[in-house]
């Protein structure tokens, strides 16, 4: 009856879709923790996310990359069932161990899943915590709500230990305003991990943080999910962060997944022209080819993607990238089919590296 029971029985839902994570360390054929099929999110008649498929295997770490307007955050909110009032989602979102589709499920059923099987960390650590509650109480609350701890005393003890684990020792009685942004984000992480979720979704969790703090939070996220064998869906615009923490990556543009695959393959051998452009534009290292210390250093310009990201609803038909793509031809007015499979594929009529294939 309770969600605990659901988890123990662990009915394989949608077992047809088996995702094999690329890295050898990840598990072999096992039912996916999260299976999203044909997720479409729209405001009135405007489609913001179109037909997104994605699955995350047990213990797998998947990155979702995109710039502003790509629909990556909406996808996360859609999975969590946290879309704003006038935004609607269609398609299917299944979580292993949950016997119903998350799309269309009522708030009561969803709230039993959220924070328990499915936990999240958002970008803004300032607003994610209740300013009038001590942090340990907030972590304890997360466990009491889902009855993973039976009483307040044990929950508090578990909370203090969790805070220890994210290297917040001895400040359990602090209030959120007494903490720095990085510390607050660690509290949020502790809350997210409190019930050993099967899946942790992080939406730009380190974007608001300094680089050195980011490194620490990333380390703690990785440790947290590894220790619990939780799957991770990590949403960011930062390619390097995804490369550091994820095994597999999906690239979104204009509300569609344009390419997916193992991190190493996508980052070293991108097929979609958008991925290719994005990688080139963000690679400051390669652009600094000039030898250091010589009297005549040379500075290269960064390769760019022309134009700007269109506003929501103003992406072109067919290939969403064709208005900015240097390789676009007439055929791009037709929507490119998905080439490849669930694990590795892309949607492009003129893929990069096609000549040498």
């Amino acid at each position, binding site marked *: 009856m309770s969600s605990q029971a659901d988890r123990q029985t662990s009915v394989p839902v949608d077992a047809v879709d088996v995702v094999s994570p690329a890295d050898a360390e990840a598990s072999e054929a096992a039912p996916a923790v999260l299976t999203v099929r044909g997720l479409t999110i729209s405001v009135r008649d405007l489609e913001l996310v179109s037909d997104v498929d994605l699955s995350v295997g047990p213990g797998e770490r998947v990155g979702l990359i995109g710039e502003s307007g790509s629909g990556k955050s909406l996808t996360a909110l859609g999975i969590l069932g946290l879309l704003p009032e006038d935004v609607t989602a269609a398609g299917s979102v299944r979580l292993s161990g949950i016997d119903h589709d998350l799309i269309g499920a009522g708030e009561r059923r969803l709230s039993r899943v959220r924070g328990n099987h499915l936990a999240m960390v958002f970008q803004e650590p300032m607003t994610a915590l209740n300013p009038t509650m001590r942090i340990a109480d907030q972590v304890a609350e997360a466990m009491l709500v889902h009855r993973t701890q039976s009483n307040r005393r044990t929950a508090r003890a578990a909370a203090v230990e969790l805070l220890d684990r994210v290297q917040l020792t001895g400040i359990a009685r602090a209030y959120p305003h007494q903490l720095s942004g990085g510390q607050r984000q660690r509290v949020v992480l502790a809350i997210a991990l409190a019930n050993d979720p099967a899946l942790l979704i992080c939406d730009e969790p380190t974007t608001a943080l300094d680089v050195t703090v980011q*490194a620490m939070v990333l380390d703690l996220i*990785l440790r947290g999910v590894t220790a619990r064998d939780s799957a991770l869906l990590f949403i960011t615009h930062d390619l390097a962060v995804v490369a550091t923490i994820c095994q597999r990556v999906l690239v979104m543009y204009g509300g569609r997944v344009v390419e997916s695959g193992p991190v190493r393959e996508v980052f070293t051998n991108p097929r979609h022209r958008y991925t290719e452009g994005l990688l080139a534009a*963000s690679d400051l*290292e390669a652009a600094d080819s000039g030898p250091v*210390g010589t009297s005549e250093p040379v*500075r290269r310009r*960064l390769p760019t993607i022309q134009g700007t990201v269109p506003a929501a609803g103003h992406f072109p038909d067919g290939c969403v990238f064709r208005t900015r793509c240097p390789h676009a031809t007439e055929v791009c007015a037709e929507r490119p089919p998905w080439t490849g499979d669930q694990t590795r594929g892309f949607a492009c009529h003129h893929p990069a590296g096609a000549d040498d294939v």
Partner: protein
Amino acid sequence: MPELYRLPRPTDRPPAVDPVIKVTDVTRDYPRPRTSLLKRAEVVHALRGVSLEVQPGERFGIVGESGCGKSTLLRIIAALDRPTSGRVVVDGTDITRLPERRLRFLRENLQLVFQDPMSSLDPRMRVRDIIAEPLVVQGHPASGARVRELLDAVGLSADAGDRYPHQFSGGQRQRISIARALAPNPKILVADEPVSALDVSVRAQVLNLISDLVDELDLTLVFVSHDLSVVKHVCDRVAVMHAGEIVETGTTGEVYAAPRHPYTRRLVAAIPTIPKALAGATPEDLLTPPKGAPR
């Protein structure tokens, strides 16, 4: 294909010319707002004895994390804030105690580009008025031709002038900001985190634009950022700030490749990069400065 650009001047040599910006032992204290009637207001030491020199034509980077004092330093250099002690000399003139009415040379020669493309443009003004503002202030003829020329220089179409800032994307707004800064033909361009709020694909465009303009117009660039890899790409020399002090100065290549100060080592190690990651770096490695350096 990427074009090759020569640096205006190699800068690791001892400077032969007078520095265009010379900051000597500058401190800046702020009183915290009082929290109690009985207790004294606390004092925040935003800058604790900062000294630096920027040579004409140089691209100088200031790197540091939030709260390190880099924005305060930048405002003091732009005479938008006054140091508590110390001296700032710009273009041979000590601006430290100069009243506003005698800062005209600075207002013409030093212009700023800010981080937040949302708040850096007055939402109630049309783009052409925004760009013309520095010209009007300084009594130059603010002709439509000059505004069109500036819009063209930053890669915007002439009809952009009739529109309001909110009709543009972040990257386009940053271009407008740059056009406004270039309007009075400044010698020094000070950029405060100009690409931090931008998308990756747009960031490259804006970085290229700044780089091109600095070359074409022979500007001195002071580029402030929290991101050492961006500074390394744009600048020749860099000062690393931490807790109100400059902990390390050097050419960007040297500082990036062989940081000496423990903080700089920590900072460099913490930057995630794709090559590092593909070579197998984990977040733990980001936390570990190389070769037993103190954390």
